[in-house]
């Protein structure tokens, strides 16, 4: 990855953001030329970036329909939530067992930042939440776990944007983070895992309700 061309990296970041924030909607057809022009970039880096996004599960290349943004639906949501529930729980458990002093300082700093950020600034809250989960995954000291979680997070980020218009940021999440940092600090693996599972489950429950409402009203 180190020798990847810098324009490919930039194209990758930009397209990934467009997909996760739904500017490129699930199921939409991607025209490479148009995309390259709108990003003000060459065709070659855009093509390379799309290939990398196929690997992330965000883009599909089909022989008949060309390039598509991967679709999203309730069965997807259920499968995703099963995986994240299990892996995030594991991540919190391992973090409680393995976090270094520096890593606890990082979690504490993120928790504080979250407390200082207005609860209704949902974009920033979400960004901090993402950092928080990443920091815990790093504190778990298992790179395969961290990689899997990052990929799943990218996929569920789209769900969050889909639900965003109907979803205030969960006020309980902030409290959950306080408890979680305390549990990790206290090296209480059982408690850390339980809190994390509850926190993730709550998120998916909300999203599921909103999406179900959406579908029935269609």
């Amino acid at each position, binding site marked *: 990855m180190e020798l990847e061309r810098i324009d490919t990296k930039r194209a990758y970041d930009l397209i990934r953001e467009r997909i996760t924030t739904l500017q490129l909607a699930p199921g939409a057809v991607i025209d490479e030329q148009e995309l390259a022009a709108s990003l003000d970039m*060459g065709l070659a880096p855009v093509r390379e970036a799309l290939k990398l996004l196929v690997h992330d599960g965000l883009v599909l290349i089909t022989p008949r329909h060309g390039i598509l943004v991967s679709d999203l639906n309730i069965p997807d949501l259920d499968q995703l939530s099963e995986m994240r529930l299990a892996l995030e729980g594991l991540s919190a458990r391992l973090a409680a067992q393995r976090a270094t002093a520096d890593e606890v300082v*990082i979690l504490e*700093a993120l928790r504080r*930042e979250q407390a200082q950020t207005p609860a209704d600034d949902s974009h920033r809250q979400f960004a901090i939440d993402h950092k928080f989960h990443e920091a815990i995954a790093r504190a778990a000291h298992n790179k395969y776990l961290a990689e899997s979680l990052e990929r799943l997070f990218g996929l569920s980020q789209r769900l969050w944007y889909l639900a965003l218009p109907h979803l205030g940021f969960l006020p309980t999440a902030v409290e959950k983070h306080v408890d979680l940092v305390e549990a990790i600090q206290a090296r209480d693996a059982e408690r850390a895992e339980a809190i994390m599972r509850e926190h993730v489950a709550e998120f998916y429950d909300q999203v599921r309700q909103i999406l179900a409402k959406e579908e029935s009203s269609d």
Partner: protein
Amino acid sequence: MDTNTVTNLVLGIDTGGTYTDGVLLEYESRRVLANHKSLTTKRDFAIGIEEVIEGIHIEDPSAIRMVSVSTTLATNAIAEGKGKRVALFLIGYDPDLLSRFQLDGRLATPNFYFFDGGHDLYGREKKPLDLPGILAKVVEIKDKVDAIAISAYFSPLNPEHENRVYKAISSVCDLPLVLGHQLSTKLGSVERATTAALNASLLAVLHDFIIAVRRAMEKRQIDAPLMVVRGDGTLMSDEFAARTPVETIHSGPAASAIGGRFLSRRDDALIVDVGGTTTDIALIVDGQVTVSEEGATVSNYKTSVKAANLLSIALGGDSHISLGHDNEILLGPERVTPLAYLAWSYPQVHRQLKALALRSWSQATPDWLEYWFLLRDPADLGALHSTREQVLVALLRDGPRAVPDILKELKLLHTAQVGVPDLFRQEIVGRAGLTSTDLMHIEGRYDVWDAEASALAWKVFCQFQFRDPDEVRQEVWTHASEMIVHTILTFLAERPLQLGDRQRCLDGVDSDMARWFFYNSLYRVHPHLDTSIRLTQPIIGIGAPAGIFLPPVAEALHTELLLPEHHQVANAVGAIAGSVMVEEELLIYPQLSHSGLEVFGYYVQAHDERFEFEELADALAHARSLSQQRALGAALRSGASNPQVTVEELTDGLDTYRIRAKAIGNPRLTR
């Protein structure tokens, strides 16, 4: 072209202060196949580069094996304060010491913060790292800056604190981070901090530039590795350059020097590059550009970046010729568009100059020879800052205007009152006037634009002073060559010589011996004492005006002037003629007991890795082989073909050593 032989084509591009040059070169035979010049667009260098890549004649883009660029982008961005906003985190630095020696103004950013931590001269932790304090500061400022630079005390000996800070900050925000120990192994803490801050401020600038060049290449279907010239004339991959933009400081002049050597095949010479805006001087010894070991200085910021040792003066083909307060003739420092070019582009300017030449003495003053004109039309006048700017732009839409005319329209008395610096900086309004390029037109030595307009303007300029045009012209050339000789002298002697009034000096009113020696050597005035200055190496002239500016310089210095074929574009040739170079420096220092009295063994610090040895000899041996391996690997990854590695051992005193491995090879051109 003979199509039976395998040819390796390379494309070199140099973005100078005035022109962007491109050359297409056949690598092995050193044959220049095509070249192109376009105006440098300072507001966005990529525009000029795109024009060059589009304008150059390329038969088969797929035959191009490498593209390489040298750029003044970094130097300019620093000089004009156009870098991004940077926060500098200083760990283990003493705030009182910094302010007492007034070093805090040299850090290249006003946003610097002190934190506990850092190491000592023997790599031992001086104070525990204040990570909570650092992260609290990051959260506070992260929306107000574009990048964060981190420099910890003695981090080259022990980067632990910088690395811990890196991990922590990258966990809480996405800003680009720069670590001091990755840019320099030198121990000077202020220079390292400055270098880190400058590097951080330039990251986005160079990143955008490289992407723009790549896009321009793709438009022409050029699929080849892209290299960027370093400040010492060697090449690095674009990906490396995007991470270490400070290394491109001085890359333009360094490329000129390398190109001059490449075209002339001389390994020892003085390189004088006469451009449109500046004249740059560098020295080639044993085939290499001499570099300043102590680090390059840009806009008063001392860095720890190794770059070509060079001296630059604001004198070039487009330097403005004007009259000073005492009616003395000034050459430069500002650069203007030659009148020959303006009149050639706008015939009405030719007519106006003709009318001016017929006016009476009191009405044909030299200020009528300065014109302002629209370089590009801002589509939306409302986007301009002031109504004054809007009025001026609207006025110039009908064509160039002489300055007194503009002042009259704006009802002002002096140009200083106009107050529209942004219009010049953004290259919306340009300035034109008399330049040495006009004199070359008059003499028929350069003949592409309107020579008659130049002659008319020159007549007005000289008549105003009641002087003979030929005599004044001669005086301008003498003045130019005197400036260049003076620069060469101070560059090589490495000490300043303040020039004064020549006549006062030769008449003995000014009693300074050094000045007298200088003038007497140039003009041989003393009846009994003959002094002379002799340069032992030849001068290689580079740039289009070199053939005109430099013959008297070489004569005055009693040396030979070489103007190799294609010397006009030697800068662009130099962008591809450099070697790929990677340097790997390891530090070895003793592991001391806490009392500092006992030596337990030796550390080898290889950037982020540290090895421990009981014996110094083992430590040195390990450092040698490790640095060699690493330099070789990195050179191959950067695109060097068959790199040769040399290992050097230096001592810092205090039982501390540096092992420096340098891997150099020509760029690899085969696919």
